[in-house]
């Protein structure tokens, strides 16, 4: 197939496409061709594809309306399978060979859409109709909703894991320039020449903005020439980063901006070599917003028929892509600048049927120029309705009163296939608005200007309502100079000499055109195309009392589409203002939010997904555990051995075996994850005395003490053993999960309240490997690997610690016990951890040493009634609730943290929940953890709950189940029977008992 045959709208010459690189693509299953440099939209227009989608509510056929980020209609799904991408705008999709695209709505297809039948009921679907219906019968809403949901949505999400990766870069610069049109380039150049570090980003495929299709000369050369020279100069600076295909999508506090760079989307669907997209997190000292303006269409009946386009977009397609998207054009405008489109169309050799100008006496140079070319200009007229269904067939044109409010004569039909519409321009105030700056309505430019911002930024060029190239260059240059000066650079201004520019006369503030019928009865006059919001809908919202612009938005859904109201919102506000007899300034605008254009989730997530989602922490003995077949449990970021199953064992078997080994022989636990904080200084003891509930002033070197920490609210916050390592030197053990929080806790009190205390804290958790050797044979095991500590029970007592050597490694050995057995916690520098661990295993072999994990640790400590903070406590229990009055010193002169709260009325009342043990009546019944406790077997619902089971296990040693629970007034209720009703309908009876099930006298750990 020759090009002429498929690309009927492609001009023979011109444009910035590479005609030597023909590309083949499919749209809705049909094959087409285009060129490198095309967007999907320009290629579809070149091929004469009219209908690219169907509208959301009424299933109306829709065509390409724009050439950029504001496109509401040409929403496509690219590719298929894992790499498919939903909801892309064809106007922003660079064409590549083999691209597959399809429309997101329409069934069976966009040209023959049976869902169009819904549009017959369109009159029954005014804004908010669903608030007024589907209410009865009550149960049926979910039934209706099922069909509403089915009809909603645009594209389809992939259903399998994303094959691509996404990068993240942190950037710092002096000046970030957003937009690489004339203003942005002039700003970047001015700043770069001062030596400032500059980043310039633009969302389009290439830099240049309006210069890519401009007729003016700059400094005597064509705009395109100036563009090329400027880009070449910028590229030479090492201090300049140029980012095409990069959308600045968010402007956050303190000049933090986010840029989504599309690294490979212009080449293929996925990138198997590098990141598909990349986020730049930029901290800029100064920001220049040169992000341009978006043209505003005029609102008239059936203005959504394919073939109605923005005037500027038509020019863009002709000049940049060499595509004239029709044969006969009517240009409908309220301003001079749009006349350029008629001239471009005319120059492309196709017919301009007429320029319809709402103004009665337009005088500008462009108007004269058009007339001089023989273009028919109908002044004081308006297009009030479009003829045609799947393509424009003509326009109803009628004379208009000077103020644009009513028709003054009969409408007549003019034939055409394209209507270019221009109602003026809206500066892109979005990024400025992200910072909290409120846009300001300006009657002069008939648009919102950026408001006052608290950030170091300035808007220039079209983004500030300046539309001629000369002023854009001048503003850009001045802003670049000022930004660089603000960064401490010295700069001089550059002046540009622009020729060939045509001065524009005054435009008319005009938004919604009158129709022969009132708005409520006229054919749909579309404002928000994607969501089928009409002028009548906006007026209806106002009639129903939804008069705030935010109410109108929310009631009609205006601006909630993927174009976020870029095309229609200002028109909508103007229509609302007129309905309410207000000015637009009084009506106000809505606040724009990030993202400027939609941003890929993966790009925002960056590399922190999958196994990099969160760091995993391992002890030095990890590989040994893996080789021993351990199952692991996540505890915070740590991976801890949970249990060590032998072949054929399930968890219960393994844990039972491990428990019995500890109780009868000896076991070994990797306790390295316990938090460890080294505390030094002359006031260390005083400090400990203030943060723990019990006394620390008299703890002697060589001794250890268990302590509990409370929040200032009196609730248990952490617990652990602190050892006195020497004079003014302590080592504090914390819970595994609490380590970081405890360090913060110590630091904040020290630094903010007691800076006079001389004390220093260092986290040493990772410095040490801790191997807990526990069980009746523990001493024998340690004796084999340690010869320089007197292990005799009288010399090295329970709650003592000693320096020594274990397997040749300097070690600290602590006689503390979480199992209730004779225990030695061997601490060695982590580098030697695995070595010492293996030596301990070797030494213990003859005594049956058994590695055990967290589950066995939990069972053993529960047998002893030792609590685990965070499992048996939940932030709402005091030491008294935990039956640990013994750990609270009432004698300390300093009011330790949390002490005062313990005296509050709620903390001293009776019937607080207290820690007790539970024994099930059937010893083989193991209560599920989290079971709730009630007083009666058949308690009626709602039941008065007495507490809940916090820990529960089968104890192999006791040959029965045991549980810890918190029960209202539990300590006074020992011997009472209570009941646990379970979700499966069983009710398990249990007796309240002491929380210590095993060796209540503590004899075994103290030998």
């Amino acid at each position, binding site marked *: 197939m020759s090009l002429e045959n498929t690309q009927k709208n492609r001009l023979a010459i011109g444009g910035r496409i590479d005609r030597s690189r023909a590309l083949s693509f499919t749209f809705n299953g049909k094959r087409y061709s285009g060129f490198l440099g095309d967007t999907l939209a320009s290629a579809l227009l070149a091929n004469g594809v009219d209908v690219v989608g169907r509208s959301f509510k009424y299933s109306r056929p829709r065509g390409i309306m724009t050439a950029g980020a504001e496109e509401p209609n040409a929403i496509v799904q690219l590719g298929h399978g*894992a790499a*498919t991408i939903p*909801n892309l705008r064809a106007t922003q999709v660079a064409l590549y060979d083999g691209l597959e695209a399809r429309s997101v709505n329409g069934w069976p297809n966009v040209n023959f859409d049976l869902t169009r039948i819904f549009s017959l009921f369109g009159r*029954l679907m005014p804004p908010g109709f669903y*608030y*007024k*219906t589907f209410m009865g019968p*009550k149960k049926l*809403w*979910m039934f209706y*909703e099922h069909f509403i949901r089915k009809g*909603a*949505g*645009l594209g389809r*999400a992939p*259903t*399998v894991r*994303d094959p*691509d990766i996404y990068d993240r870069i942190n950037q710092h610069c002096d000046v970030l320039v957003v937009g690489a049109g004339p203003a942005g380039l002039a700003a970047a150049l001015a700043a770069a020449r001062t030596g400032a570090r500059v980043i310039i980003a633009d969302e389009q495929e290439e830099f240049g903005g309006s210069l890519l299709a401009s007729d003016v000369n700059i400094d005597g050369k064509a705009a395109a020439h100036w563009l090329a020279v400027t880009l070449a100069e910028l590229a030479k600076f090492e201090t300049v980063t140029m980012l095409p295909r990069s959308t600045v999508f968010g402007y*956050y506090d303190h000049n933090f901006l986010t840029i989504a760079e599309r690294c490979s989307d212009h080449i293929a669907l996925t990138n198997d070599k590098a990141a598909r997209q990349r986020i730049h997190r930029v901290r800029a000292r100064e920001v220049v917003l040169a992000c341009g303006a978006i043209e505003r269409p005029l609102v008239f009946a059936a203005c959504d028929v394919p073939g109605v386009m923005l005037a500027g977009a038509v020019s863009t397609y002709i000049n940049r892509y060499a595509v004239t998207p029709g044969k006969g054009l009517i240009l409908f405008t309220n301003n001079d600048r749009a006349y350029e489109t008629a001239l471009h169309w005319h120059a492309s050799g196709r017919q301009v049927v007429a320029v319809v100008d709402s103004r009665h006496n337009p005088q500008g140079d462009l108007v004269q120029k058009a007339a001089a070319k023989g273009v028919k200009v109908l002044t004081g007229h308006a297009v009030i309705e479009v003829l045609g269904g799947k393509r424009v067939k003509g326009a109803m044109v009628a004379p208009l009163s000077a103020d644009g409010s009513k028709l003054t004569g009969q409408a007549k039909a003019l034939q055409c296939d394209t209507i270019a519409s221009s109602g003026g321009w809206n500066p892109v105030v979005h990024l400025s608005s992200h910072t*909290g700056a409120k846009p300001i309505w300006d009657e002069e430019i008939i648009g919102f200007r950026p408001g006052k911002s608290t950030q170091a930024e300035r808007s220039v060029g079209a983004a500030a309502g300046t539309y001629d190239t000369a002023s854009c260059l001048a503003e850009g240059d001045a802003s670049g100079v000022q930004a660089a000066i603000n960064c401490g650079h010295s700069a001089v201004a550059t002046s540009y000499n622009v020729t060939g520019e045509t001065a524009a006369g005054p435009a008319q503030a005009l938004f919604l055109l009158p129709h022969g019928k009132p708005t409520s009865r006229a054919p749909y006059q579309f404002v928000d195309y994607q969501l089928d919001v009409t002028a009548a809908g906006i007026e209806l919202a106002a009639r129903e*009392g939804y008069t*705030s612009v*935010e109410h109108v938005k929310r*009631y009609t*859904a205006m601006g909630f*589409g*993927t174009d976020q109201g870029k095309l229609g919102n200002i028109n909508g506000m103007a229509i609302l203002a007129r309905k309410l007899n207000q000015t637009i300034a009084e009506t106000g605008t809505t606040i724009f*939010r*990030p*993202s400027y254009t*939609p941003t890929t*989730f*993966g790009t925002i*997530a960056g590399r922190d*997904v*999958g196994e990099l*989602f*969160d760091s995993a922490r391992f002890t030095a003995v990890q590989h040994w555990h893996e080789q021993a077949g351990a199952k692991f*449990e996540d505890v915070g970021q740590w991976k801890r051995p949970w249990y060590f199953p032998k072949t054929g064992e399930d968890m219960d078997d393994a844990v039972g075996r491990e428990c019995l080994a500890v109780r009868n022989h000896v076991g070994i636990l990797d306790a390295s994850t316990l938090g460890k904080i080294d505390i030094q200084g002359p006031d260390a003891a005083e400090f400990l005395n203030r943060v723990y509930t019990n006394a620390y002033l008299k703890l002697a070197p060589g001794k250890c003490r268990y302590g509990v920490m409370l929040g200032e*609210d*009196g*609730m248990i916050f952490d617990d652990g053993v602190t050892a006195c390592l020497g004079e003014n030197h302590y080592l504090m053990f914390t819970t595994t999960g609490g380590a970081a929080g405890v360090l913060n806790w110590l630091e904040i009190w020290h630094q903010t309240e007691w800076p006079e205390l001389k004390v220093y804290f260092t986290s040493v958790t990772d410095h040490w490997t801790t191997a807990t050797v526990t069980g009746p044979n523990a001493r024998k095991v340690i004796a084999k690997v340690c010869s320089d500590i007197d292990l005799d029970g009288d010399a090295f007592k329970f709650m003592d610690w000693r320096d020594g050597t274990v397997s040749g490694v300097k070690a600290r050995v602590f006689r503390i016990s979480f199992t209730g057995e004779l225990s030695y916690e061997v601490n060695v520098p982590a580098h030697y951890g695995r070595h010492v661990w293996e030596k301990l295993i070797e030494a213990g072999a003859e005594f049956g040493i058994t590695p055990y994990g967290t589950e066995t640790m939990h069972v053993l400590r529960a047998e002893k009634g030792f609590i685990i903070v965070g*499992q048996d406590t939940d*932030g*709402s229990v005091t030491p008294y609730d935990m039956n640990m009055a013994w750990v609270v010193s009432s004698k300390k002169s300093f009011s330790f943290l949390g002490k005062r*709260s313990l005296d*509050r009325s*709620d903390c001293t009342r009776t019937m607080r929940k207290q820690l007790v043990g539970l024994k099930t009546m059937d010893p083989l019944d193991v209560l599920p*953890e*989290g*079971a*709730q406790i009630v007083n009666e077997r058949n308690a009626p*619902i*709602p039941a008065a*709950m007495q507490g*809940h089971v916090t820990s529960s296990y089968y104890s192999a040693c006791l040959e029965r189940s045991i549980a810890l629970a918190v029960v209202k007034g539990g300590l006074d209720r020992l011997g009472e029977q209570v009941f646990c*009703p*379970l*979700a499966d309908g069983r009710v398990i009876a249990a007796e309240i008992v002491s929380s210590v099930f095993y060796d209540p006298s503590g004899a075994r750990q103290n030998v």
Partner: protein
Amino acid sequence: MGRYSVFSLMKNALSYHENWQAAWHSPKPKKHYDVIIIGGGGHGLATAYYLAKEHGITNVAVVEKGYLGGGNTARNTTIIRSNYLWDEASQLYELSMKLWEGLSQELNFNVMFSQRGVLNLGHSLQDMRDIARRVNANRLNGIDGEVLGVAEIQKIVPLLNCSPTSRYPVLGASWQPRGGTARHDAVAWGYARAAAAMGVDLIQQCEVSGIRTSAGKVVGVETSQGFIGAPKVGCVVAGNSGVVAAMAGMRLPIESRPLQAMVSEPLKPCLDTVVMSNAVHGYISQSDKGDLVIGAGVDQYNGYGQRGSFHVIEHTMQAICELFPAFSRVRMNRQWGGIVDTCPDACPIVSKTSVQGLFFNCGWGTGGFKATPGSGYVFADTVAHDRPHPLAEAFTIDRFTSGALIDEHGAAGVAH
């Protein structure tokens, strides 16, 4: 007030929708009311509605500094559930749930309450203990709930990453089938319309600048539309509770922080339920329009700026991509922030104050939307009878003095 129905819709369609009545009017304030409610959000409007409906107090003004439902009512992620841990909280939220279940019919305004179920995922053994504890407590309080295993979860949410090798594998979940979502704006509008129909004045663009008291009693409020008198004033101003409290010379145990949320572009149905994960820090549902609605965590600092920090958005997206690896190619359309008033125990304050006739309803933190009907119901009762509604007794401001906090986040409660 004309009733809404499919018939009224057809009738109005015949007249081109030119004859719909306003859902409410915007009167000038009268000099004096029996009750003034400060704050025209969902909670304030619901309070006014129940004052009129349940207590016959119709001489009520709702004064709103912006537009109705423009605060957190307009900014939340619309999740509704009642599976709170502690009896006090769960009973209050369950009252709300029961009101939700008949709300569209009661208000004659479809609030699109959609009971598509809420899953709270567990990723650690402690998560699962907490889930079991909460579900057991809920069931004994008469609230629906189940603990689900991984296979059941996968059936309900096919796109969820249930791989045992993921960084924090899903180990199970709690499941509240009656939970779901509603159309947030519609709730405010429905209450507004129904309250206005009973005679409540809804006064928008009316900012309160002072609370006038005399001899320890409230006498009215100073506003941008002048002084308005009333012997009872209820403050329901989430996001500004501290500011309004300061007008009465009070401080509250509240800090206001940004809470961010975001939506994707609309997609065809791909997620039928609400999925929440506290451990991985993200929650997500799909709206009827097809957007994925995603909630982030609370920003660390105090802020009234209705915007937060970007790294919070990043962490949320990482969580969502971790839970739903297929959504990585979907795009975020819009992101915003609300201001949440958080109490130290993540439970609200519904309370009388030291000033007679002045009442506060605040501190709902991240859980306010789901509570809207129940909050309005108990607060109206509290204001009408000048004593806490029985279900609000545990939520008075005195609990911070006595220590009787209801620690929903310290315990197994889920934060949102």
